[in-house]
């Protein structure tokens, strides 16, 4: 009897131990991705980037922490800042994407993020980088689409970019509307694999659809 009790307690302890480790990761990721939705300032974004980076360093088999850290760094470039600083942030994000890609090659979400990063490069110096980085971004989005045609973020980012592209270059509201509508449709059916898996962009897509399709 004692033997049995011992075994039960031990297995209980072990389970708690293991569960603690894996659920701690999941719990933390749930918490942090939740916080990500409510970021208001550059400093909050930096703080989250730091947190995701720490998790990425501790959880060497998980790609999502590096993914989110990169996501934070790219988003930081949309706050005011000097061009050199923005490039430094994007360099950092690129390293994190590369790191995540080693863990999870051929991941549609990572390619979307890669395209997003290239778009960030354009925004630092549109006149000179426009053409070159648009092509790089489109290449990444193309791959993302091939890996998972149901990923709404591909269409959302491409649509958003078209909306901000002059009509002469094939952009404008008219051109962006169908893409954004496709994105919205895919958002409605998209179910993330986990609570903390990438699931951003829907609200913004709704706004952009209104903006581009009602003109």
């Amino acid at each position, binding site marked *: 009897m004692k033997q049995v009790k011992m075994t039960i*307690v031990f297995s209980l302890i072990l389970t708690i131990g293991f569960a*603690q480790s894996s659920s701690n990761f999941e719990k933390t990721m749930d918490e942090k991705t939740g916080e990500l939705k409510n970021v208001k300032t550059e400093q909050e974004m930096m*703080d989250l980037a730091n947190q995701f*980076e*720490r998790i990425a360093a*501790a959880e060497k088999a998980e790609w999502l922490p590096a993914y989110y850290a990169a996501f934070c760094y790219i988003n930081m470039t949309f706050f005011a800042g000097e*061009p050199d600083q923005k490039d430094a942030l994007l360099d950092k994000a690129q390293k994190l994407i590369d790191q995540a890609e080693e863990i999870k090659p051929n991941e549609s979400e990572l390619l979307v993020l890669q395209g997003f990063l290239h778009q960030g490069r354009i925004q630092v110096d549109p006149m*000179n980088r426009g053409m070159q980085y648009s092509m790089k971004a489109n290449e990444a989005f193309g791959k993302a689409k091939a890996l998972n045609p149901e990923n709404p973020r591909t269409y959302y980012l491409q649509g958003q970019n078209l909306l901000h592209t002059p009509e002469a270059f*094939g952009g404008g509201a008219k051109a962006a509307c169908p893409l954004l509508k496709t994105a919205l449709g895919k958002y409605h059916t998209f179910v993330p694999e986990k609570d903390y898996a990438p699931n951003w962009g829907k609200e913004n897509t709704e706004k952009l659809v209104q903006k581009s399709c009602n003109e």
Partner: protein
Amino acid sequence: MKTLFTIFIVVCSQYLIGQTTIWGKVTDKKGEPLTGVNVYLKGSYDGGSTDTLGFYRCTTRLEGEQVLAASFIGFETLEQPVNLNLNKLTFDFSMKESYNELDAVVITAGSFEASDEKKSVILKPLDIVTTAGGLADIPSAINTLPGTQVVGEEGKLFVRGGDSYETRTFIDGMIVDKPYESTMPDVPSRGRFSPFLFKGTIFSSGGYSAEYGQALSSALILQTNDLPTESVTGLSLMSVGLGASHTQLWNKSSISVSADYLNLSPYFALLKQDFDWQEAPKGFGGSLAFRQKTDKDGMIKVYGQAGSGKSELNYPGYGDVTTTNNVSLTDNNTYLNATYRDGHGEKLISNAGVAWSQNRDDMDISGEQIRETTKSLQVRYNLTYLLNDNFKVKFGGDAWTRNFVQDYHNSQNIINASNGLNDLISAGFAETEFNLANKFAARAGVRAEYSSLINKMNVAPRISLAYNTGKKSQVSFAYGEFYQSPGDYYVIFNKNLDYEAARHFILNYQIIKNNRTFRIEGYYKQYRNLVKFDSLYLPVESTYNNDGNGYARGIDIFWRDRSFASHDYWISYSYIDTKRNYKDYPVAAMPTFVSNHNLSVVYKYYISKITSQIGFTYRFASGRPYYNPANPDFLSDRTKAYNDLSFNISYLTELWDNFTIVYFSVSNIPGFDNVFGYRYSLSPDSNGNYNSYAITPGATRFVFLGVFISLQGKSKKEV
């Protein structure tokens, strides 16, 4: 059971109690607080970010010996061993800025680089195309950079007191024998190569690498494009001609073809010209490019172009400017360049190439016929060994063979002369480049050449140093010896001539910060062994020697500000003091192509509302010397100052759903009457006066209108 309970408690306690807090302040080396620094216990989730005052707080349940790390973009990561069982857990960090590739010291003395690959370069390839007054001509756009001279009647690059032949053009490392189109006297020439062929341009006004030889003053180093990004067909309709091109892209290879036709007669009929054209310039050309990616690092590139042009002009006679000569010119040129680049493992890169060109100019000056044929073939091989990120060695060699023939027939066909030369220049170089802690960089090399024609050798050492004075600023220094074979026109009459030689010293300071660039460069250049002769007009009877010499010294300043979203401008200013005694100069004097002060202001503005980029370029050059036989003081006369204000606009639009650029440019909007110099009769007229005429542009203004259409259907929109 008791033991069991104890175990349970011990295990759980780790999760329930024993929280420890570490805190402290993070500053940079100057003591300024850093915000956003990631301070954490390695291998755990536990950590914190510094606030605006530089303070962090890190709460953990870990115990015992751990490592506390501080990391931040642009700074070197710090680590600090901590024992969490101790009481005092305050740790301050003082972080040191890190130098990444972008901030790393680079050798800049003498060189301007336009590239997309590096972020902190001064120019982008697109700048060359969009500079007003540049007319998509590489030399004209480079002419807005410091160190260059306005020489409007030539259109070539004259760098730091050097004649135009002292600047050499290199494509993928290989020398271009005839980089400019052949033109009539005093009609400016254009570069032979389209700026759209190149992904990178380095303009070096001195102190360049031992890889490049046969250039006394300057090297224009062009790197051709890799694989194109898409298949596209292009059409161009211009006020001066027509063109069509097609690029077909496959997975790892591509082929591009182009053809163009140029005819200035409709333009000359519409806008009055000051030159007495008998036949407006006409020409046609074609090109073929092939690219094949062989593996990750391997690339084969082949580029060939051929073209022909013709024009005829009535022009004042050389001996007596009151007479008129009828001058006609037919020019045929073929150029072929093939290179193969590959990596061998991580450490070795090899570059092999062959370039061939042939040029024939047929000139008829009132019945006197001159035919000049130049053939050139160069074979080259280079090996680069990268020991590590901070140390590389490069060495290689090339063999360059040239054949030049000048045939002369006078109008009565009494004199028939043919003079020519064959030369084989064999060259080898070795160079090492190293970098110490991203703070100090050095490049040292030596180049040796042997010319079979003059049967002489030269050895040219070159050294460049750079030192980082701050994260974005640096000081560079360059020294070098440069040799160039004596010009074809002299060496055909005297094979005992020696190399012309120049020695460069350059000191440069540069700061690039937040899209603003400031650069100042001082130089001193000595010339020796320059070719001298007795008479320009009696080439056969003349004696030739290497007794010429000279110097040039000056300051070049460059400022560019790209910190505004849609505005961009740069200003370059050059001051030069130079004298030389060469050619048929009786004494040392400032040569006719030099102005002491040169200024250019280039401004570009993108108006997104009308999807147009407009640009203005203003150029100023102080007066140039000209030869006045009536003035005993040689070359002491000066023209008035040169002024030009050019404008261009590129309008991006769609034509039947095809991406289209409408380009319009006009030079000299205010209509300045520019004079490049004066030419005098060789002897006075019956009244004892020397007659002369002013060398001016062919027209006050040049107006250009072009429509460039990319036919790619709707494919672009679908992305």
